[in-house]
């Protein structure tokens, strides 16, 4: 990233290719619509590009990157919420394409949907993505203690649901 700040285009290409899958995975966990996730993916990359001068090489990249991604998602949810409050409900919902969720079994997926967003995120980061508590906490933008509490509550809720 320090090379990117100096204008090294090869390093920038390598960095964006490297973080792309992690960013997409992060977004898929937060938005259900594929097209929406793709739009947000572009927004995250543009925000990262505009904020690249704020990165401090002495600090790890992940908290910086996912703080930007979280901000983009939160901003998107605010916009969407405002938009929904203005929309008129229709009599019948439109048909929805089947999403390729793939990473969890249907019953578990159904149970996961009943958890709070924070608990679901903690569970997926630790149990589906297999991250360490420290990495998962950095990605969720919280402390390791708070992440452990969220995960514990998620496990307890899932035991009751499954």
């Amino acid at each position, binding site marked *: 990233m320090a090379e990117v700040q100096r204008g090294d285009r090869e390093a920038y*290409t390598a960095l964006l290719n490297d973080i792309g899958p992690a960013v997409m995975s992060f977004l898929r966990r937060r938005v259900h619509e594929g097209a929406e996730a793709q739009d947000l*993916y572009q927004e995250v990359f543009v925000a990262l590009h505009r904020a690249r001068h704020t990165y401090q090489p002495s600090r790890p990249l992940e908290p910086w990157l996912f703080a930007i991604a979280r901000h983009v998602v939160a901003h998107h949810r605010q916009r969407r919420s405002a938009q929904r409050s203005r929309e008129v409900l229709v009599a019948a919902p439109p048909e929805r394409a089947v999403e390729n969720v793939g990473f969890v079994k249907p019953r578990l997926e159904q149970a996961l949907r009943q958890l709070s967003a924070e608990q679901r995120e903690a569970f997926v980061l630790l149990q589906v993505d297999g991250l360490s508590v420290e990495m998962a906490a950095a990605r969720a933008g919280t402390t390791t203690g708070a992440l452990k509490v969220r995960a514990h509550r998620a496990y307890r809720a899932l035991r009751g649901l499954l």
Partner: protein
Amino acid sequence: MRVVGTPPVHRALVARLVADAQPVARLWPPAPRLAAWLGLALAVVALAGVVGLRPDVRTELARPLYVAQVTALLAGATLFAAAALRAAVPGLGANRALVGAALALTAAGVALAWWMPAVDSHATVFGPRCALCVVLFGALPGVALFVAVRRGAPFHARATAAWAGSAALLVGAAAVRLACPVDEPLHLLGWHVVPVAVGGVLSAVAGSTWLARWCEV
């Protein structure tokens, strides 16, 4: 070749961003920027002591409560400024503790006035002038802090603008505390500290739009 796990738009997006990848001046970390801002704030406070209406400022500076009050206001300003500068750097974590401590110090600065013996009662005469001076003395630190925050990437523009505005106006309040000859607690609360609270709210409204522009395409 498509990068696995990325959407179809990835290649075009990367090509567009890389084409625009000019060298950028790295943002200084919050600590040295805060130190520079604090230097400016102290200079403003010192100037107020020199040009102020208070003839006994040297005597007052020997009273521990008086010094503690000015120090509490300046410390509150510093913590608000630190929160604003940190908020402009992604991934530095929450600022709740900093803002809580800044509010506590400001409250302590106000509360100390009740322990100090009242000397004069020109509250009505000096009142509006004091409020104006809080704004005037806070203007330069305010502009400097907003420019410094704008250089970063402030996500929560409204809160960041409120913290930056409060920091600047607390410097103004500390400066006016050195310049104003009135020691009455209600005067200090009404004409020195309430303008800080009102200014904090106004800067949240006015400054948030400007700070939020960093991410506009």
